[in-house]
């Protein structure tokens, strides 16, 4: 036993001596290699010491334990690798690789002297047993890493690096993640280099065959491995999906870059004249000074917008530069999807940012206010669809066509609730109201049938539009095809059953109601009970709606009809009217004649402040092509609004500081609207009293 131990210690000493010698050798080598020996050697002693200690431990503690070479290393078991052996192995590997790459002559000379030395150092690492503690092997042998990164100057060099490369994964028994990735990258890079070189050589060979004694140096010396691809290669590359994706992405970036109108290099000291010109009204504008309305941009895509009507528009609540437009079908393209939604970017004029489609005309579409990637839509076939901007153009979810759900066109959808609990609400023209969970559209969570409180000819109500007040997700108004606007409850409450509230109806319109809009409630005065409605009877009406709870306290005969506060008769059918999100008295309307009108009831209740028509497309249809269907304000700033209609063009307008924008809002505006409402109410009450008297 004693003898054995002594022998071991003897061997140990010999080994230590050998290690020391190796270390010196390496130090000398690295010193020669990089010229800064001090910082390169510094890390190595630590490792050697550690190794010594570990091997000492192993020799003292576990003599039955096999030497670590067998444990997890690629080196053959039992044979303690000497430098000669490993060198032989490596050169054999190298020649394998070299023969692959058609350069056998260079293989023999490949592993140069310093390289062998470094691999020896690597081999000795194997000898330490895998330490019980997880150690991070840091690559302190700078001789390997620093030099590897330099681009290969000669072919032999690249090959001589390879054997090391093959060893590395085994050596780093516990590599940090980053390290292994870097190694993989490096490996990949090396492979690529070899591939390039093979290609180059093939090329040279081909050229030699073709007979042209080419000055090969021209190609080889250049770092740019330029060579034309063959037809086949070109086709293979350009037909790949990857290349298609690349084209899609990169052209989008380029177009955005080129559409950026502002020139960052503008020198204003040189541009005084043209700046003054800019003050003059250029382009399509209306109104004067601070009440100006100006057309900013129009969106039209020859391929997808053509011959489709814009059925709805919505600005993204998260990205104010994005807006979506939904379209009906193109009658002359039966193979295209009937309904499409295009998401336009105000920085990308010629093409939509996203394109989504559906099998039926899309009648309404909306960004989810709670999730910037989701878009919901309602179709003529009665489906409610959900698209995701991260997914493909087909809807990610859709409601069933048969069974539960809608079987009539859905003209109105909305998402109500809060960030964490919200539902899609849809209403179809047969009076069906469905509540859906955003996560599951296969079945409605709630279903409600709206029926006419006073059946005359039909029991059904045909809702064309629906509006929720900001405060209450259980109460809403529906505008009907018959003309009245009905208040509805989603659930039973005191004095009223779920469905249409039978006690009150807002009667005034004589034709289908096209839009109902609650006043947006941000301001010092609560005007949330003001409702604006537009109708095909050539009018826009302003209503003051009763609070849903108040109706139960006032004893009223069933079927009280309430009259509008204000009746604005226009010159054509009015398709849409929308409150400004920031100005209390400002709203916009669009009509069948193709005009966009901006009103401010705190200033004027008889005529619009500004009236403008979008620029007609040159090749557009002449007859009946001007009608505008929808108008939408951008909600966060309230400066821009978008319109669209039969013309299939979406036009974006910007209003002056007196009509939009948050900065110039004065408290007086709110109070003056409040006063106006009070005055109108008094006048209405007076008129009613006069009528009864």
């Amino acid at each position, binding site marked *: 036993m004693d003898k054995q131990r002594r022998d071991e210690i003897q061997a140990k000493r010999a080994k230590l001596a050998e290690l020391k010698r190796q270390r010196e050798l390496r130090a000398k080598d690295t010193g020669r290699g990089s010229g800064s020996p001090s910082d390169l050697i510094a890390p190595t002693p630590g490792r050697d010491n550690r190794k010594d200690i570990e091997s000492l431990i192993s020799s003292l503690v576990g003599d039955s334990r096999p030497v670590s070479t067998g444990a997890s290393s690629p080196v053959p078991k039992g044979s303690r690798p000497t430098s000669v052996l490993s060198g032989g192995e490596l050169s054999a590997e190298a020649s394998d690789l070299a023969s692959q790459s058609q350069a056998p002559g260079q293989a023999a000379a490949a592993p140069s002297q310093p390289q062998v030395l470094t691999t020896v150092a690597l081999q000795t690492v194997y000898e330490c047993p895998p330490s019980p503690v997880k150690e991070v092997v840091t690559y302190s042998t700078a001789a390997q890493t620093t030099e590897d990164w330099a681009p290969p100057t000669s072919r032999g060099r690249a090959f001589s690096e390879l054997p090391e490369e093959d060893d590395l994964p085994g050596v780093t028994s516990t590599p940090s993640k980053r390290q292994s990735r870097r190694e993989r990258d490096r490996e990949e890079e090396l492979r*690529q280099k070899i591939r*390039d070189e093979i*290609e180059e050589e093939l*090329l040279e060979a*081909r*050229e030699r065959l073709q007979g*042209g004694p080419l*000055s090969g140096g*021209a*190609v080889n010396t*250049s*770092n*740019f*491995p*330029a*060579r*034309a*691809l*063959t*037809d086949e290669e*070109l086709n293979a*590359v*350009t037909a790949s*999906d*990857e*290349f*298609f*994706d*690349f*084209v*899609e*992405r*990169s*052209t989008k*970036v*380029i*177009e955005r*870059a*080129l559409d950026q109108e502002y*020139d960052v*290099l*503008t*020198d204003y000291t040189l541009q005084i004249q043209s700046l003054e010109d800019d003050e003059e009204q250029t382009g399509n504008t209306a109104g004067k000074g601070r009440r100006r309305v100006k057309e900013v941009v129009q969106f039209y895509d020859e*391929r997808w917008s053509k011959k489709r009507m814009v059925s709805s528009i919505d600005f993204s609540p998260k990205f104010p530069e994005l807006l979506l437009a939904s379209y009906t079908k193109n009658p002359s*393209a039966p*193979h*295209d*999807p009937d309904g499409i939604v295009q998401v336009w970017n105000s920085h990308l004029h*010629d*093409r939509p940012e*996203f*394109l989504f*489609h559906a099998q039926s005309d899309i009648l309404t579409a909306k960004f989810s206010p709670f999730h910037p990637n989701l878009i919901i839509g309602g179709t003529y076939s009665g489906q409610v669809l959900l698209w995701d901007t991260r997914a*493909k*153009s*087909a809807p990610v979810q859709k409601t069933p066509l048969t069974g539960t759900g809608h079987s009539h066109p859905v003209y109105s959808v909305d998402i109500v609730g809060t960030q964490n609990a919200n539902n899609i609400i849809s209403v179809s023209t047969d009076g069906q109201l469905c509540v859906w969970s955003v996560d599951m559209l296969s079945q409605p969570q709630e279903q409600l049938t709206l029926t006419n409180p006073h059946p005359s000819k039909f029991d059904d109500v045909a809702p064309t539009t629906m509006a929720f007040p900001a405060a209450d997700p259980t109460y809403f108004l529906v505008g009907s095809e018959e003309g009245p606007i009905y208040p509805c409850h989603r659930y039973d409450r005191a004095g009223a059953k779920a469905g249409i509230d039978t006690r009150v109806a807002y009667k005034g319109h004589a034709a289908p109601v096209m839009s109902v809009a609650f006043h947006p409630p941000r301001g010092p005065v609560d005007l949330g009970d003001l409702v604006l409605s537009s109708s095909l009877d050539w009018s826009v009406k302003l209503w003051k709606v009763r609070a849903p709870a108040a109706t139960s306290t006032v004893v009223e005969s069933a079927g009280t009809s309430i009259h509008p506060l204000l009746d604005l008769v226009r010159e054509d059918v009015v398709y849409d009217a929308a409150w400004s999100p920031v100005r209390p008295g400002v709203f916009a309307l669009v009509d069948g004649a193709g005009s966009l009108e901006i009103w401010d009831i705190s200033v004027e209740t008889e005529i619009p402040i500004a009236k403008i028509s979008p620029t007609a497309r040159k090749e557009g249809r002449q007859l009946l092509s001007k009608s505008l269907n929808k108008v939408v304000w951008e909600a966060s700033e309230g400066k821009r609004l978008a319109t669209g209609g039969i013309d299939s063009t979406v036009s974006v307008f910007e209003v002056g500081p007196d009509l939009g924008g948050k900065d110039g809002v004065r408290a007086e505006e709110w109070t003056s609207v409040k006063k106006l409402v009070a005055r109108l109410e008094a006048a209405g009450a007076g008129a009613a009293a006069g009528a009864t008297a």
Partner: protein
Amino acid sequence: MADKTIPSNGTDPMDEALHRLSRKPGVKAWIMLDRSTGAVLKSNGQISSIRPAKSANSDTALPTPTGGSFSTDVTANTDNESQAAQELGSMVWGFMSTAGSLVQEIDTEDELKLLRLRTKKQELVIVPEPKYILVVVHDTPPA
């Protein structure tokens, strides 16, 4: 592959995108390169007008397979155009590598995303993607 499911109207969406790019006001030319090798994949526009090919003689010209390797828009003077595209491509590729190594030097985790090279006469917009590179040369608004 966002649009693969949509029946196309006879026009390839990729061609459409490229044509739209060519039609954009101010765009003089574009070249698509392979990122790893620098080989010209597609090109369009009057590249020789931006920078005429230096070596017009065929001795030093890189081997170009006969016919069809370039986008069909280039019909006249194909040899010269392709030569110019090759050369411009190689210059851009070199520039890209330098810029890429600069980015790597600053932060190894970082990545080059877009290069806009503005000159007095024109602007080069370079979009480096993992496998390919798109280079667009366009006129800048007169400053």
